[in-house]
């Protein structure tokens, strides 16, 4: 085993594996139809060494054909890999069309390179290697009684020697010492973020804050929004680039014809049939904006919560439990639509402290 001969005592590892652990040597390639039994070791006179595995597959003609096929596949793979490198060097990206071409060339050459290798390897195994079926013994996984007893002995003696069991004072103080040590890393996470406080209860909307059409970010007069069935997304003036604000303050305004808006819509929060609802779904916060002009339903695309915009955005289907908050509207001195105040309830998904 070791090159330096008897320098070491007979090895620790060598003796512990009982004989049955090693795979039995079985002569390979039995036809599957015939009974498979473990053959006896050959008689002593016959000293011919048994092979663990045969050297050649059984059908040599087929193997020769297979060899040619495998070689061809490996050459194909090589060419494809070279093609990959060539495509990388030769094809430019920097536009959608260029990327499309480059992706096609690189991907195709990579697929062929790997695919040909894979197919070639499988044909090699199936036709160039002799088929064998070997049997290996399993030992029960549980250790023997003797081994378990020895383990127990080692463990108990070590425990006794450590004094852990016999000295309750040091044991208990050790445990007591580890408790705050374990808690300390959790405490370190406190500054991951600020405390929620009452931040979720309010948005930035304030009295007199203009509604801007999101995108061009221009203010809106009621006369500009006069056709029943209109809808547009609006954001608070001054915050159009602040995503944190928009995640709560984005609002949709809808125009209704006379008599279409009904309770519990707050009529004194509307202007000329223009009503404003929060665009943040009260389920889990997706922007709810599929407005169906004909049914006056606002549908959220995430989980299909549906709100009746003509009736205070009450929930008529889906998992949302609360109607969309309504933003009180009024107009300012120049006639632009402005908020009359903040929302009168927290917008967005429910939370424990909401009440």
């Amino acid at each position, binding site marked *: 085993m070791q090159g330096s001969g008897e320098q070491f005592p007979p090895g620790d590892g060598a003796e512990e594996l009982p004989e049955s652990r090693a795979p039995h040597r079985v002569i390979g390639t039995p*036809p*599957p139809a015939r009974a498979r039994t473990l053959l006896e070791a050959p008689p002593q006179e016959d000293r011919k060494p048994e092979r663990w595995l045969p050297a050649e597959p*059984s*059908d040599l003609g087929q193997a020769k054909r297979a060899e040619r096929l495998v070689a061809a596949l490996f050459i194909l793979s090589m060419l494809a890999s070279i093609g990959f490198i060539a495509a990388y060097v030769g094809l430019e990206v920097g536009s*959608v*069309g260029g*990327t*499309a071409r480059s*992706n*096609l060339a690189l*991907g195709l050459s990579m697929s062929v390179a790997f695919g040909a290798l*894979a197919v070639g390897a*499988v044909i090699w*195994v*199936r*036709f160039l290697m002799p*088929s064998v079926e070997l049997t290996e013994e399993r030992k029960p996984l549980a250790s023997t009684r003797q081994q378990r007893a020895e383990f127990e002995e080692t463990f108990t003696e070590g425990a006794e020697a450590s004094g852990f069991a016999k000295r309750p004072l040091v044991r208990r103080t050790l445990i007591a010492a580890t408790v705050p040590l374990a808690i300390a890393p959790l405490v370190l996470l406190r500054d991951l973020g600020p405390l929620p406080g009452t931040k979720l209860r309010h948005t930035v909307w304030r009295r007199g804050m203009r509604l801007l*059409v*999101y*995108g*061009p970010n221009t203010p*809106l007069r009621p*006369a*500009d*929004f*006069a*056709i*029943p*069935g*209109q*809808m*547009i*997304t609006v954001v608070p003036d001054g915050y159009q680039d602040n995503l944190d604000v928009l995640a709560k303050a984005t609002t949709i305004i*809808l*125009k209704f014809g006379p008599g279409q808006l009904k309770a519990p819509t707050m009529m004194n929060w509307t202007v000329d049939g223009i009503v404003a609802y929060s665009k943040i779904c009260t389920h889990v916060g997706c*922007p709810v*904006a*599929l*407005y*169906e*002009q*004909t*049914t006056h*339903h606002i*549908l959220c*695309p995430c989980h299909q919560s*549906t709100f009746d915009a003509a009736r205070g955005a009450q929930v008529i*289907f889906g998992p949302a439990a609360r109607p969309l908050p309504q933003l009180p509207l009024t107009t300012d001195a120049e006639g632009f639509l402005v908020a009359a105040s903040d929302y009168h309830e927290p917008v967005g998904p429910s939370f424990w402290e909401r009440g």
Partner: protein
Amino acid sequence: MHPLNPKPRQQVSGIKRWRRQRAARYAVLMLGLAAIAVVYAAVTGAGGAASAATPTGPSPADIAQGKAIFADTCSSCHGMNAQGTEAGPSLVGVGAAAVDFQMSTGRMPAKDLDAEMPRKPVTFTTEQIHQVAAYIASLGGGPAIPSAAMVSTAGADVALGQQLFITNCAQCHNFAGAGGALTYGKYAPPLTHSTPTQIYEAMLTGPEAMPVFSDTTVTPAQKRAIIAYVTKVRSEPNPGGFSLGRVGPVTEGLVAFLGGIAALVFAAIWITMKRREA
């Protein structure tokens, strides 16, 4: 003169000789076609040059023609005076743009009264559609058909169009305009075949369940930006391969199982197949 024909030919007159030449046949054909074209053009009048732009204004003849088509095709659902019936809404005040949109996409005349009218092959010519549009517009006004300049995407701000589209359109029509489901069997259709004019008109008039985006809220320049974004994105090649419908992770997951896993299971079966021994 044929060598085997001993009888000498008569002298042929000029016209008859010319008639026998091959080119003559083609010349006659061409003349005939040209004559038909001239007669046709004279009969049908000046409506031939169809463009998205309504010319200076519909003539009374157009309106009358439109009324006639309306009476034939549309009045059964929309009423003799377009006032509406149980089957179809009133068209008074919807405007020429709405009529042009509905008819040029083939949605109207409707075949089945479904939750939503699908796009179908168009049954009327552009001129006829404009005539009906002119008639409806004469009843109660409403948005006009946008001119070619109004829907041109030259110089449009595509980045603004992207922002407006995502904010106001993608929730129904999907990020790439592939369409999406609404309630009670309605749906927002895919935008793959919509012309710039149709996109403008749809925003302007809010067909069926679609909300209205008037020109005072989303200005014509902003509408052009949206049209530019939509037409650009839908004609863009897919650099990563086939688009799988541009609907997102649902089709991707399907392909992962039915394509990737299936292929690998077959590969695994092949790798572990027992070789049949002779």
